[in-house]
């Protein structure tokens, strides 16, 4: 029934795009659409009202009427305003001048505080900090155990003198934790607290008690990105209660699109510091306001995508692969490994969702069957090393055997081999710095470019002519036409088994 905010806004802008000049009624119609879109995306009503009012004011002003392309200008204004609310630049955690830095987590029940504590600890450890986790949620059954398990997984000690389950004083635990951290010279203390409702005065004063006991450098308000209109009440209650110095958005890997981000950022005035994007302990990244704004405006999130890819692809392997591609030694074995790498980056769908114009590919995305990857894997696993290294030996009887072994059909085996050959071709072209133009494939959308292209380009990007960006994924994106004014009817290609 409802498309996401991105879809709606791109529909709205499509109507504007054709116009040379905008009338006041054009603007009002557009603003009505934007208002509705924002509300359907769960942006809180009072935030929407302010937002619309300021866009209207700017849009009716000189800014637009004198502009060469008014539709573009409205897009710009909406984008500016979004970015303004979400924060202009990506903010960082405030570290204390003399350690330990104390970070206190607060939020509603089930917003994801404990999981986040684990992720944050891991991330800090990777930043060469020495964090310690503090189990001050003595309310929820086994919240303490959960934190201990997470601590063990990420290799960070957990201060947990009380077992919880309704027993123990969290304020005392927090206080003791700070003394312990100072003595044992931990650089960061992360205090996990119980989930609490904004209206629960008793629990809120407990949170204030914890705050006063630990004197935190950061009070991070952990917000479920699926939060609805209640975001306003909740944000006000936490801001006026325990106080908020920063926001973390969780469950951003879901299909809700950040309405709560706008509401909470606007109400608390605090910067959004991190976003949490999955259940794995790595699914955690700094929050980039400008990316979020362009995500909402359907300009894609190419930068995030590329960074995610960089993290998952092992550098060494990439180099070897790049050489192989350049020397035409790219084999099915590599194809398989690369696919597995891609998988590490997260679900294909969420990956594809970050690409520009992805809103337009929504239908195809819905149809994209991740089990296709599993089938491809099965087929390659059924091949001998000889076959994997040189698919040219694959004659009829070999193909039949592989089909049997993998529980697929000869047709599927044939399809895979064809796709592999196409992908190899794509990558070869990419590694030479060109943009391949193979019907049925989209270098941006699929692994051919995200994986191979990135790898190939890394080696040779600077020398190549005609490329705007050193990063092929980015470059391809540029060539695809990243701006809102040139939407691409892109389809996911078939290099890795997507069939439309």
């Amino acid at each position: 029934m409802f498309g996401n905010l991105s879809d709606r806004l791109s529909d709205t802008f499509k109507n504007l795009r054709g116009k040379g000049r905008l009338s006041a009624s054009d603007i009002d119609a557009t603003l009505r659409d934007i208002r509705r879109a924002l509300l359907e995306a769960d942006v809180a009503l009072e935030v929407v009202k302010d937002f619309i009012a300021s866009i209207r004011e700017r849009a009716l002003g000189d800014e637009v009427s004198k502009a060469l392309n008014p539709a573009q200008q409205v897009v710009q204004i909406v984008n500016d305003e979004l970015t303004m609310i979400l924060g202009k630049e990506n903010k960082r955690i405030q570290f204390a001048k003399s350690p330990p830095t104390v970070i206190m987590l607060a939020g509603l029940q089930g917003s994801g505080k404990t999981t986040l504590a684990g992720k944050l600890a891991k991330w800090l450890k990777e930043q060469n900090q020495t964090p310690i986790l503090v189990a001050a949620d003595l309310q929820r059954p086994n919240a303490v155990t959960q934190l201990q398990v997470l601590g063990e997984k990420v290799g960070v000690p957990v201060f947990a003198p009380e077992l919880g389950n309704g027993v123990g004083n969290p304020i005392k635990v927090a206080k003791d934790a700070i003394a312990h951290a100072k003595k044992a010279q931990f650089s960061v203390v992360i205090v996990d607290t119980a989930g609490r409702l904004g209206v629960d005065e008793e629990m809120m004063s407990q949170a204030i008690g914890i705050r006063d006991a630990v004197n935190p450098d950061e009070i991070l308000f952990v917000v479920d990105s699926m939060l609805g209109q209640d975001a306003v009440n909740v944000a006000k209650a936490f801001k006026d209660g325990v106080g908020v110095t920063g926001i973390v958005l969780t469950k951003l890997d879901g299909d809700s699109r950040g309405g709560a981000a706008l509401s909470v950022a606007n109400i608390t005035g605090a910067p959004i510091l991190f976003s949490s994007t999955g259940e794995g302990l790595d699914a955690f990244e700094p929050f980039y306001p400008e990316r979020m704004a362009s995500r909402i405006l359907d300009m894609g999130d190419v930068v995030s995508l590329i960074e995610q890819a960089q993290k998952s692809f092992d550098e060494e392997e990439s180099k070897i692969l790049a050489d192989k591609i350049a020397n035409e030694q790219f084999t099915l074995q590599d194809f398989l490994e690369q696919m597995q790498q891609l998988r590490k980056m997260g679900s294909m769908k969420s990956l594809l969702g970050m690409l520009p114009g992805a809103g337009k590919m929504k239908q195809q995305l819905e149809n994209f069957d991740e089990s296709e990857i599993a089938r491809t894997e099965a087929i390659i696993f059924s091949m001998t090393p000889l076959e994997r290294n040189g698919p040219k030996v694959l004659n009829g009887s070999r193909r039949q055997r592989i089909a049997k072994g993998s529980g697929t059909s000869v047709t599927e085996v044939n399809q895979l081999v064809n796709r592999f050959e196409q992908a190899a071709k794509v990558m070869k072209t990419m590694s030479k710095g060109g943009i391949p133009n193979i019907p049925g494939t989209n270098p941006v959308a699929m692994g051919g470019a995200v994986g191979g292209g990135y790898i190939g380009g890394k080696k040779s990007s600077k020398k190549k002519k005609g490329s705007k960006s050193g990063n092929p994924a980015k470059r391809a994106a540029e060539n695809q036409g990243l701006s809102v004014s040139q939407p691409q009817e892109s389809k996911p290609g078939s290099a890795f088994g997507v069939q439309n």
Partner: protein
Amino acid sequence: MFKFLKRLRDKDADAQSEVAEIDTGRKDSGPTEGSEPELLAVELPKRSLGSGIRSLFSDSMSIDELEDVLILADFGVETAAEITAELRREANKQGATTDPELRLLLKDLLSKRLGRNDSALNLDDGKLPYVILVVGVNGAGKTTTIGKLARWLKDGDWEVVLGAADTYRAAAVDQLETWAKRADCLIVKPAKEGADPASVAYQAVEMAISTEADIAIIDTAGRLQNKKDLMDELGKIRRAIEKQVKISEVLLVIDATNGQNAMSQVRAFTEVAAVTGIVMTKLDGTAKGGILYALQKELDLPIKLVGVGEQINDFAFFSPEEFAKGLVAKK
């Protein structure tokens, strides 16, 4: 009140006479074969919504502001507009203008919209054990809901087995175990972390059968509805259970503080897990749960339970009338 059928045990002998009158007229749905367990109709302790719901209106009610008020309560743009138009029409027709008149009109209208009054759990076909599968996104309140439900059933003298099929989240099993202790019921746990949830579900049902328990409640890991692999896993859990018995209820737990995304949750879970009823949690906060009206309109699923706190008794069976009353109440 609701009638349920459960296994007749020796220790129930005394209780039997007390509930004998309720038992009448249930013979037709009871078992006829000699090998089937004898069943007893029981009435479970009642829980009511009470003062759990906060009113939509902090001040006097006005039709002009109603649409915004409804939007603020997560009814969604479309449903809010519809209800406002409908109220306006009815108010004109009936000449309702005063605050109490308008509130009454709105209450009737809201109550009618959630017309299905079948919050009773389907625990009466006599084929024991009944299996309740609990699903939902991360942090919705599945495990807590199960704890409350188990205790309530236990209070009604039912034997309950819990299945800890959330093998993913750290310490989820321990959390359920704590609830199992509080509710005094058996729990089947995975052999190790990350074990196959379907096999845990299977074993829990197996345990329920072998211990002649009345009910097995299966907890599952939270999953966001757009994760295909995780959603497919739910299908697998379902199939594993149904190798042994039919599933009586698949309850989808929704967090009242979630906004319009709840719609997407219900759609996806219904498709994969054949949801039979909704549980809405965290209604003790400032969230109003207006999304229920939009959900009902599109999917026609009964709302079974609501969660109104963290304590073991903090839940109620849903009643459209009570819920609507709470929403329009003059506080």
